[in-house]
């Protein structure tokens, strides 16, 4: 079995959480939510740990992780820039916003900058169609974004 490279403390917290649930297959999704909250992503070692604790095959854990768009097996940047490409945003030219972020940060959608600061992702509808096009940076929401706003948004998260 692969050795664990991530913080033992986080594993301990995850274990405590799993023990607080019914610790069976039905709890898998909520356990994965907690694990991603703790580790930031779900690498193989975490998936194996969860499978072991819930007494279900790792293949089943991976099946669920890969099925849902919320779960990620890659570490993400400190600031995850989610550009809404739902229909309302799409017809209001969200694609131009995506391109501007890609050009400014010099990465493609789904990628993270070399310094681990920014990740660009697209998602479908954040439910704020009235503000289309919408951009979310972690939990901050920006509405009626124009191409010119992109630089200003990034500047807010520059350290």
């Amino acid at each position, binding site marked *: 079995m692969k050795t664990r490279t991530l913080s033992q403390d986080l594993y301990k917290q995850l274990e405590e959480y799993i023990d607080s649930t019914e610790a069976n297959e039905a709890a898998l999704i909520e356990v*994965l939510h907690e694990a991603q909250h703790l580790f930031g992503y779900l690498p193989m070692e975490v998936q194996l740990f969860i499978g072991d604790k819930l007494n279900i095959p790792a293949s089943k854990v991976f099946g669920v992780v890969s099925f849902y768009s*919320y779960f990620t097996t890659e570490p993400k940047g400190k600031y995850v820039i989610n550009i809404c490409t739902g*229909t*309302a945003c*799409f*017809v209001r030219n969200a694609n131009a916003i995506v391109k501007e972020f890609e050009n400014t940060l010099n990465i493609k959608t789904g990628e993270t900058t070399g310094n681990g600061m920014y990740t660009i992702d697209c998602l479908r509808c954040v439910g704020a169609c*009235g503000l*289309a096009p919408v951009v979310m940076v972690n939990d901050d929401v920006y509405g009626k974004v124009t191409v010119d706003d992109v630089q200003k948004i990034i500047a807010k998260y520059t350290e």
Partner: protein
Amino acid sequence: MDRIENLDCLLNKQKELEHTMDIRKANHDNTEYRELLICGGTGCVSSQSLKLLENLNQEIKNHGLENSARASITGCFGFCEKGPIVKVFPEDVFYVGAGAFVCGEETALIHSIEGGRGEPTTKPPFPAESGLWGKPTSVNNVETFANVPAIIINGASWYNKFGSHTSKGTKVFALAGKINNVGLVEVPMGITLREIIYDIGGGIKDGKKLKAVQTGGPSGGCITADQLDVEIDYESLYSIGSMMGSGGMIVIDEDNCIVDIAKFYLEFTVEESCGKCTPCRVGNKRLYEMLTKITEGKGTEEDLETMRNLAETIKLTSLCGLGQTAPNPVLSTMKYFYDEYLAHVRDKKCPAGVCQALLKYHISEDKCLAVCPTAALAEVNNVPTVWDAINDEKKFVVVQTVPAVRVALGEEFGMEPRTVVTGKMVAALRSIGFDKVFDTDFAADLTIMEEASPTTTETLKSLKKELLESIPRTGLRQSESPMRIQ
């Protein structure tokens, strides 16, 4: 449960239900509060559920739990053979998903709650027979559930007052896209699209032209500007190839390319297809590829026919609602905007100017020359070509002069400013070897005259006729001194 026979019964029922709602409110503040719901259906009553209720209330009292629990009677739970049934409300269970469009399908949603991949399964058995953990389950949209208390409190006839002949009540639409007032609107069924868009929505953004309204999300279709007066309900939307679906209503204007929109929806369903059944997993992917081909200007008319066939097949053979409705955006846009598809495949043009590969750029040399900051473009020296033409015995060479030259030329030769040198210029050009000199003044004058007064058009017509008759067959009448028509 009591039968509702008159208004008093109904009002009593309302009071009971208000009490249930109060339990929820109380529970919100007090997480320890429990309601024991005891089945009062015939099966359970016959197995002593009423006695059970009495005993439970006694026990609650004995333990001093009046503030944290109470027992009350409800209607049939549907497990009559297992009676008496007691349900503890609420159970404090809250399930979270993790983002998958297909989980809107009821069996997929159930699998997701059970902790697995949200893949749909074939029906029957329907969830009402065997659903979550194999138990009968009612899966409905929040909007549906939200309507229930209002219907019970105000009665069915009240609810039936709203809506069209076939679809009753109201519907919430999420109005978005190229429209002035965006947001959620609750309207009675049977309202026309025109009322929603122009009265409530305040019309199209920036005064543009409405092209279509997309309803029902990625599973729905388009309604065209011609269908603005259709009364919106479940049946009418279905009959024009769209659907109510999520209640999304996206306004599309003339700046949006309809093929691009169809491609956008397909991209989404391809991403969200769970991959279980082949028509949806592979078929939609092929549809998406064909649409991409068309937007890149590589599509053919045969592709359109193939797409239609494929879309119909996917619709008929997919396992769940996602696959069965995924081709709707393609089918409905092809039905109503076939011209736009044809423009892409036959003329290789995108009428809305969205598809990059089909945009054609034209460089206007004069405009470029005038603004080029780096002198990247330079005027070409055609003097040798002109000499060749003059020296060619067989060629009849005409030189055309711009009006300003008759003055500018004199200044170049050191004459007083504003000296008119028309005669000298023409003589010089003739000496160089041009056969004729055509003065632009001639055409410029005609234009000015016509612009000055429309009545001169008639004069010009007769003049033109006269001129044409007098011009020798070698070509236009040339003048050695400029011809002036006053």
